[in-house]
């Protein structure tokens, strides 16, 4: 039992997350495209490669590292049976994100965020609710271009966050930021595909390990 939980932590990449994506995939999905220079957030400057004709280009090498860390973390959370909540307030991708969550067997919230969802959960849902163990943001901004309330609430409730931060977003309170484009359909479809594959891989590995343990 103990071995099931401690064994994955000894490897740096137990779930071989690096094989799921390449630099070329990210480039083809237009992940490196940021917003215009005027929209740039101060804290995103370390992640930006350069500026071409007033449009910011995100450094894909850094994106690769951050993405690998984030996917590895989600895989570990899914392996230990944690609740993962996908959050996005982009109306274009609401249906896609909800379908991805359903396919993984995890949860999604792409609608209006009621204030006390995480902080006042016992009153809203009922006593004995289990809060999500990981929040995944496909877009950190809400419809008014302000940081999503869930980032602050998750930080208050000590829930780790993984988020795709664009050049106009604030990456401060997010535990595993992924600098990248969050507006193109191709990019968001790529992220959904990657998250779905990691979670399914992690759950399958868990079932296999449990089966192997039971046989002994």
């Amino acid at each position, binding site marked *: *039992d103990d071995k099931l*939980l401690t064994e994955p932590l000894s490897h740096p990449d137990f779930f071989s997350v690096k094989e799921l994506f390449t630099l070329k995939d990210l480039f083809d999905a237009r992940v490196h495209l940021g917003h215009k220079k005027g929209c740039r957030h101060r804290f995103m400057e370390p992640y930006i490669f350069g500026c071409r004709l007033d449009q910011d280009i995100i450094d894909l090498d850094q994106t690769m590292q951050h993405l690998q860390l984030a996917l590895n973390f989600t895989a570990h959370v899914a392996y*230990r*049976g944690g*609740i993962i*909540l996908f959050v996005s307030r982009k109306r274009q991708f609401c*249906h896609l994100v*909800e379908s991805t*969550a*359903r396919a993984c*067997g*995890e*949860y*999604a*919230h792409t*609608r209006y965020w*009621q204030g006390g*969802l995480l902080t006042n*959960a*016992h009153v*809203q*849902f*009922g*006593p*004995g*609710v*289990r*809060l*999500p163990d990981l929040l995944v943001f496909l877009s950190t901004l809400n419809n008014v271009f302000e940081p999503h309330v869930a980032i602050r609430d998750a930080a208050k*409730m*000590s*829930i780790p966050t993984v988020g795709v931060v664009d050049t106009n977003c604030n990456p401060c309170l997010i535990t595993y930021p992924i600098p990248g484009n969050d507006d193109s359909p191709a990019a968001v479809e790529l992220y959904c595909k990657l998250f779905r594959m990691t979670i399914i891989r992690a759950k399958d590995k868990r079932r296999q390990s449990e089966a192997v343990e039971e046989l002994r």
Partner: protein
Amino acid sequence: TLRLICTTTAVQRKNARASGPEKYTEAFIKKQIEEFNLGKRHLANMMGEDPETFTQEDIDRAIAYLFPSGLFDKQARPMMKHPTEIFPEQRKIQWGEDGRPFHFLFYTGKQSYYSLMHETYEKFLNVQKHQDQLIAEDLPLQKEKRNLAGSRWLTKIELEEMLLEKLSDDDYSRFIQLLQKLVALPCADIEESYIQKFSKELPVQLQEVVIEPLQYDEQGKAFSTGEGKRKTARATAVVYDNGTGKITVNGADILHYFPVLQDREQLLFPFQFLGRIGKHDMVCTVSGGGRSAQAGAIRLASAKALRSFVTEKEVECMRQAGLLTVDPRVKERKKPGQEGPRRKFTWKKR
């Protein structure tokens, strides 16, 4: 097993705080169902009927017999119904033993409403995809006009009952807008069965007034019947063709039954209006009301009977003359604190 490190601890509630609407446990509902079945058998025995074949209608009749009540509100009278009809359906606990919720949209708060929106949007995308395929193959798009006038969408309360969840007006209007968008697409016939779950048939408001055809008795004479009412009087009239203008009321001649000229004028008015005074015979029965009321009732009944003998234009003339309208005036009730329906008590200055 998993080592759950709970991030939040359950908060102890103070007794003074009001909890939400009373939640019925499953055990309570089960006990109520057992008691209901037992009571049903006792009731059947009391009424001397077979306990096995005792239906809900028999129960209602038995209760109305054993506990007669003069209350006007049906909901206030004693009733014995199955517990599922009395206790409203409620939400059970939404998560399993390990704490994971069952529904993937649980953390939104309004899971059934948002899952409904998700499904409807999926149907919308399906229809669009189908449309694109048809356009790509250069096939014509189907455009059979769906009858919009004959149906209405579900009301907000009906939708709330369906989803077992509270909705806001904004949510409801958004859902209806999405459904309307879906219906507006040309190829929406594919998802017809899904759309019909949310639309209801409107009952037809207007009723066509059917003018009955003439009937013929043994001698070959044409006749037709009509019914009329006025205040508390009810009358039926049978008008025969090829007659002499004789009118019989309750077996007696018109001169004996209605000594006053005004009542006889009322009876003759329909015939005088159509110019057929000497051409029809009439036999009528009348009960209730007073002298004038009975005359008015027979007038209406004879006018209705005459519709079958006459052209449509003349029927329209009769209607405009007021011969075919039921007079709605009845005696107004006396109110407390007044002497009559309108008359107040004499006002004394001191």
